[in-house]
């Protein structure tokens, strides 16, 4: 920097000039590869899993080592071809900037976008258990997996090859517009198709025979897609690293199908006129306030994203899935000022060697029983013991003096330190009846009905529409405790009921499309003569919400689904419609077969969410007020009733004792004969001894009184 600041230093200017010249040469070479001839782009495009992303110029294995800069030096925006955008001097100032070309000029874009936040499971092999259960999943992440829904029914990614338009539910293009893109940071499946080609480049290639909005060979990536017009969504670095990023404006661009313009607007670099959705060609007007006199962009960059950034995407699902509040009021770590990245560290700050490395964007993750993406990276985040055994960051060191060791062997930290959950979560998600609650949008979501931990109807989407996650009502409840990998954890075991499809020769189940079940109900509600059997489904438990539970209701539902799918040309060859309730697949109202599942699950087709956030202070943990917090007749730790099935034949939940679920026969202190007889012995010893002593005292006093009174009389 001293060299640059001193114009009299001839050597300094020579070195700077050399660097600029080299960079220009490399960029020029890169532009020739990325832009221009699509056929060349195909050659350079990664082919296969884990290789998505064209190595940007000047980066990757061929890049020249960069001198350390500490912070991003002043830099110019670049477009998709790598050309400089300089609105101050009117150079190339109508096109959107490319995060890949701009940030990737110095940073390893390919390495970064291999992170699971970008790939979302794309290209990753399915874990065998997951593949055996879910016939519809293609990848283990949100892309092609179980989305971010706790239980079926939900939209499903179409296979790459399809034989019928009717059997395509959601393409890769739809994945963006079906609000998945609202959180997805770009890169991975939002940039490259399942063959490893960049969507827009391939669609523009005449040899590919693809047209915007066309059927495009019923290709699950291109069916009715308009990639050549919308562009792709490159990994948007500023989505996380610019604290002032405007997600709302970004997502408005996605809704307008202005995919490649979204990053420019979200970062506040300028505004866009024109909507691809309306057949227009958008044009950028850059905000000159954001540029310095040399045309460099002025940025506030946060190397470690703020909590608000993470919560922008994780707060809402955290509410529905885990009843998470992420609030200093309910979480001792947030109250202590910790950030998400303190525990979920990544890159060179990561704790675990599996994810540690410069620019490696595998964010440290926990172990979600129902999360299948990159299971090989489970527990790469900072664990409780990493701080509370070592005292890292001056964390209180957990001593647990006097606690019998069996507790630390068998209990997760969370089991005692999350005694309560402050906010309700979805304990049940059924997708078999029509939810008439207010403010549920978009309408297909009416096929989901949620019940809270108290088994009360919960209009979750209505609440989301009425208030933000910060305004969640307080509904404290005790989590269900379950064994998971040898320890007891507090969890939300989601229960589910949904229409399924048994497929010949496959052990798992498939699902019809969410929109089909919604439309079936909608038609019936508009005209009760259509699918009239649905009228048999009543509210049996008096909570005002109908539920499928009695044999005749199950039969009515199965018959209606079968009729609707047949009527609308859904391919039912080799498939049998069933009604799935937790771990049972009902072929009819009276016949069902069990579905294999783990003990910690309520259903193989509904998620189990381990609780780790909203940790209580130690003085509020179970056991802080003594053993009887758990080991007493009054304590619900063993005695609480937990839900086994959401609706019995009477419509009421079927429950069991928590201790039975944990396979504790009963409370040990009551059952153990030595303990029991010890108590009996001492109780009787106390009674006998004290009666004897009190009797002795009374007799002595009586004798004294009698003697004295006689003496008085005689006297």
């Amino acid at each position, binding site marked *: 920097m001293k060299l640059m600041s001193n114009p009299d230093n001839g050597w300094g200017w020579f070195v700077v000039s050399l660097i600029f010249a080299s960079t220009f040469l490399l960029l020029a070479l890169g532009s020739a590869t990325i832009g221009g001839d699509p056929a060349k782009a195909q050659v350079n495009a990664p082919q296969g899993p884990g290789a998505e992303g064209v190595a940007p110029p000047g980066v990757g294995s061929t890049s020249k080592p960069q001198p350390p800069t500490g912070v991003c030096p002043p830099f110019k925006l670049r477009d998709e071809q790598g050309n400089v955008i300089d609105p101050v001097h009117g150079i190339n100032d109508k096109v959107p900037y490319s995060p890949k070309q701009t940030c990737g000029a110095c940073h390893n874009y390919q390495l970064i976008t291999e992170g699971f936040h970008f790939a979302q499971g794309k290209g990753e092999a399915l874990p065998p258990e997951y593949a055996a259960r879910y016939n519809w999943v293609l990848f283990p992440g949100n892309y092609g997996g179980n989305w971010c829904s706790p239980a079926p029914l939900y939209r499903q990614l179409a296979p790459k090859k399809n034989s019928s338009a009717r059997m395509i539910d959601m393409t890769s293009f739809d994945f963006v517009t079906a609000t998945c893109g609202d959180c997805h940071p770009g890169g991975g499946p939002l940039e490259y198709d399942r063959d490893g080609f960049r969507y827009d480049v391939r669609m523009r290639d005449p040899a590919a025979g693809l047209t915007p909005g066309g059927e495009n060979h019923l290709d699950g990536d291109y069916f009715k897609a308009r990639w050549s017009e919308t562009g792709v969504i490159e990994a948007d670095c500023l989505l996380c690293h610019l604290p002032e990023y405007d997600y709302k404006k970004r997502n408005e661009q996605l809704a307008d199908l202005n995919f490649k313009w979204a990053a420019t607007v979200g970062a506040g670099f300028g505004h866009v006129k024109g909507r691809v959705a309306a057949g227009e060609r958008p044009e950028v007007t850059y905000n000159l306030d954001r540029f310095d006199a040399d045309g460099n962009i002025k940025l506030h960059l946060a190397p470690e994203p703020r909590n608000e950034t993470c919560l922008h995407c994780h707060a809402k699902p955290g509410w529905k899935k885990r009843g998470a509040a992420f609030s200093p009021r309910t979480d001792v770590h947030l109250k202590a000022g910790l950030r998400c990245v303190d525990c979920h560290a990544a890159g060179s700050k990561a704790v675990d060697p599996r994810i540690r490395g410069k620019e490696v964007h595998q964010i440290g993750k926990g172990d979600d029983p129902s999360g299948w993406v990159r299971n090989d990276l489970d527990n790469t985040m900072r664990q409780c013991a990493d701080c509370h055994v070592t005292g890292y960051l001056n964390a209180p060191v957990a001593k647990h003096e*006097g*606690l*019998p*060791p*069996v507790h630390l062997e068998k209990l997760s930290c969370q089991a005692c330190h999350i005694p309560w959950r402050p906010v309700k979560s979805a304990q049940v998600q059924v997708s078999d009846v029509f939810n008439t609650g207010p403010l549920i949008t978009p309408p297909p979501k009416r096929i989901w009905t949620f019940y809270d931990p108290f088994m009360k109807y919960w209009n979750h989407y209505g609440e989301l529409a009425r208030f933000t996650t910060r305004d969640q009502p307080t509904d404290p409840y005790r989590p269900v405790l379950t064994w998971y990998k040898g320890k007891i954890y507090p969890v939300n075991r989601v229960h589910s009921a949904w229409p399924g499809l048994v497929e010949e020769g496959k052990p798992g189940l498939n699902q019809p499309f969410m929109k089909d079940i919604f439309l079936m109900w909608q038609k019936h509600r508009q005209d009760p003569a259509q699918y009239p059997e649905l009228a048999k489904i009543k509210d049996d438990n008096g909570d005002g919400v109908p539920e499928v539970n009695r044999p005749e209701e199950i039969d009515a539902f199965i018959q209606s689904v079968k009729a609707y799918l047949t009527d609308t040309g859904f391919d039912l060859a080799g498939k049998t419609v069933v009604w799935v309730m937790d771990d049972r697949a009902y072929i009819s109202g009276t016949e069902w077969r069990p579905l294999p599942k783990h003990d910690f699950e309520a259903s193989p087709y509904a998620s189990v969410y381990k609780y780790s956030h909203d940790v209580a202070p130690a*003085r509020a943990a179970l056991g*802080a*007020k*003594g*053993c*009887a*917090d758990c080991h*007493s007749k*009054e*304590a619900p730790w063993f005695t609480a009733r937990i839900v086994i099935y959401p609706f019995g034949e009477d419509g009421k939940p079927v429950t069991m004792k928590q201790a039975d679920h944990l396979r504790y026969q009963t409370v*040990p*202190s009551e059952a*153990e004969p*030595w*303990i029991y007889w*010890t*108590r009996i012995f*001492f*109780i009787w*010893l*106390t009674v006998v*001894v*004290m009666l004897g*002593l*009190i009797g*002795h*005292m009374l*007799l*002595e*006093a*009586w*004798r*004294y*009184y*009698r003697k004295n009174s006689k003496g008085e009389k005689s006297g």
Partner: protein
Amino acid sequence: MGKGSLDAAVLRFPLHFRIQHFLLIISVTLLVLSAIPLWATRYPFSGWPAGVIDQFGGLEAVRAVHRRAGFLLIFTFAYHLLYVLIHPDGRRDFLLMLPTKKDFADLFQNLSYFLGKSQKPPRFGRFAYFEKFDYWAMFWGCVIMIGTGIIMLYSQTVAAVLPPTWTNAVLGVAREAHYHEAILAALALFIWHVFNVHFKPGKFPGSLVWWHGRITREEQEKEHPLEHEEMVSVSALNKEIL
């Protein structure tokens, strides 16, 4: 202090014994007071136990007091055992504390006296049967409370040396024995012992024998006539010899 002059008194409790008794007063009082909120933790869903614990400044404060008082009791008990083993007074008193047939006969006669069946109360030696009961109740109580207290305090260490299938039972038995023996000890102490030394007819408001260790010859003659006679005869014999 009684009617007699201390000049004519006899030493009933030697200094070591008085120190032990004084340490017992402190440790047991602290143990009982701090045990109440700990016992209350068995009922965490009631309002008042939480209030009691809060008054103490939190559960950890209660535990700290209880454990320190427990160690004082251990020290006192060890002191007493050494006193019994090493010191002639300790050995003498310990042997005199051992139960004899006469104690049972005395109990029977005393009850008869209380009921008016007998006109004379039993004549006691240095230690009456109810004093022996006090001593052995304390002795037994110390063994039980210290033993079970150590098991609970060092439960991890105890569990580490026990066969795994025993852990639950041993820790549970220790806990139950500690809780219930504590109640028995506290009741016996505050009802029986306090009655005998403070509220027994003729005793109120109590003596300072626990402080200076001396009683008058009249008191000795009245409450421990056999000991008095023995002392008198020994004294006479000594004079005769001299």
